[in-house]
């Protein structure tokens, strides 16, 4: 069941659940695809992440209340299947936090790497910074808390771990995730369309390089 709440006077947030699951993500993406096809008047953009979808609108074109009614009554088709194709991301597992992550998991570095690389992940959101790819779900044994204080600069392509998530930094930014490796895959380019390499719903596998 979805719930629609105002996020200020220029956006609505549609909440589909409160857990990280492929089914809920598929609900979010099904609704988003419908919305992008129907293109309600005044819609500016949609932002899917995990179990919710933000819809920004222009109140100069559509009044908030009527926009909300439109979203409430939007006929939504049955849940779409997520894409099957798996993207391979080559990674050099030499990050500054790799040993600590392995210790935390009580694994050898080699075992930690093969566990991370041996799991298929789903992209749950592109967010925080341009192209940053939030992926899940990380095997529980590898789950590691964020750094007590974030680094001021994390290099583009860095692959990190935070709790049950793994993610890839697309641009240099501050960051608090445990960095276990790095990829040369370009994840964000403002001249490309779409500018981000991955999209929510994509499947990823990390390949040790």
């Amino acid at each position: 069941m979805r719930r629609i709440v105002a996020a200020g006077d220029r956006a609505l947030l549609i909440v589909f659940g409160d857990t990280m699951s492929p089914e809920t993500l598929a609900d979010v993406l099904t609704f988003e695809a419908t919305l992008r096809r129907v293109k309600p008047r005044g819609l500016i953009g949609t932002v899917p992440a995990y179990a919710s979808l933000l819809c920004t609108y222009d109140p100069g074109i559509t009044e908030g209340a009527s926009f909300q009614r439109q979203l409430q009554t939007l006929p939504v088709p049955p849940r779409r299947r997520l894409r099957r194709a798996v993207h391979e991301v080559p990674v050099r597992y030499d990050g500054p936090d790799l040993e600590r992550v392995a210790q935390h998991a009580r694994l050898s570095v080699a075992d930690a790497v093969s566990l991370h690389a041996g799991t298929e992940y789903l992209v749950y959101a592109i967010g925080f910074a341009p192209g940053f790819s939030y992926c899940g779900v990380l095997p529980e044994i590898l789950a590691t808390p964020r750094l007590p204080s974030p680094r001021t600069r994390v290099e583009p392509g860095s692959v990190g771990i935070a709790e049950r998530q793994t993610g890839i930094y697309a641009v240099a930014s501050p960051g608090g995730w445990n960095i276990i490796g790095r990829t040369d895959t370009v994840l964000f380019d403002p001249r490309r369309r779409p500018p981000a390499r991955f999209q929510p719903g994509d499947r990823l596998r990390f390949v040790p390089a």
Partner: protein
Amino acid sequence: MIEVVSGGTWTTIQDRGRPGWERYGVSPGGPADWFSAAAANALVGNDPDAALVECTLMGPTLRFRREATVALMGGETLAIENGIAFPLAAGAELKIGRVRRGLRTYVAVRGGIAVPRVMGSRALCQLGRFGGGFGRPLEVGDQLPVGKATAQPPPPLPLPKGRGLRSGGGRFLKRLPLVGPWEVRVMAGPHTSAFGADDFARFLNTAFPVTPRANRMGMRLRAPGFRVQATEILTTPVTQGAVQVTPSGEAIVLLAEHQTTGGYPVIATVISADWPLLGQARPGDTIHFREVSLAEAQRARSRLDGWFGQ
């Protein structure tokens, strides 16, 4: 062409930004105080969305190769009076200096700053290091191209009656306050229900000092004694104006260059008519929040838009 003689604290090119690209992690950006930016543009006869210079705390010094018409709005400086279209001769230097009241001053140049568009906008995307001409704030030696002005002189401003228009001069009087304490209007949500029963009421009854940890991405507010009982939420898309509350009770208000997703629950959202106030609040100022409905928020916004004939 305009040459940057000194860069200032954090001087960036802004226009309406990139709304609609948040899905790829790109912040909408745009001026921290959209009203002052639009007013500065209107004064020189530009579209409200034309690219201009946003100055923070200490402004730049700009040398104009050719004659130009400029206008300043937002924070007050000793450079030229805010709210007038001011002619500059070829070779003139405009030294903005320190912003004395408010925090951000907008310098509009007739014709607009014509740096290339990236993803549909000339505004700097700070995290992505693109746009804004150089992918970074302005520095000494940067050359800023100026666009072609439309043939007509600046049109008279379509100001509603009784709004403090000084007669004849086409001047904006200060429409928005520049100094605190600030009353900022919010709507509840989207995660107000993730907080304890009394938390929202206490949020509205608290005066929050602005900490020095404030920039175009967001400003942190900390009031001693303000604590909340919030349940954890799953990472969620966030908007400009969102007031996140951390487990330690710090409130983070997201501004124009905000991250696109966040993991802290959002207790309330500042209405877009009051985003300009957030753009002018300085560290040490206090903010208190007042709740309004969606209808009130939209009326407040249309009243401000009415200044620009939109």
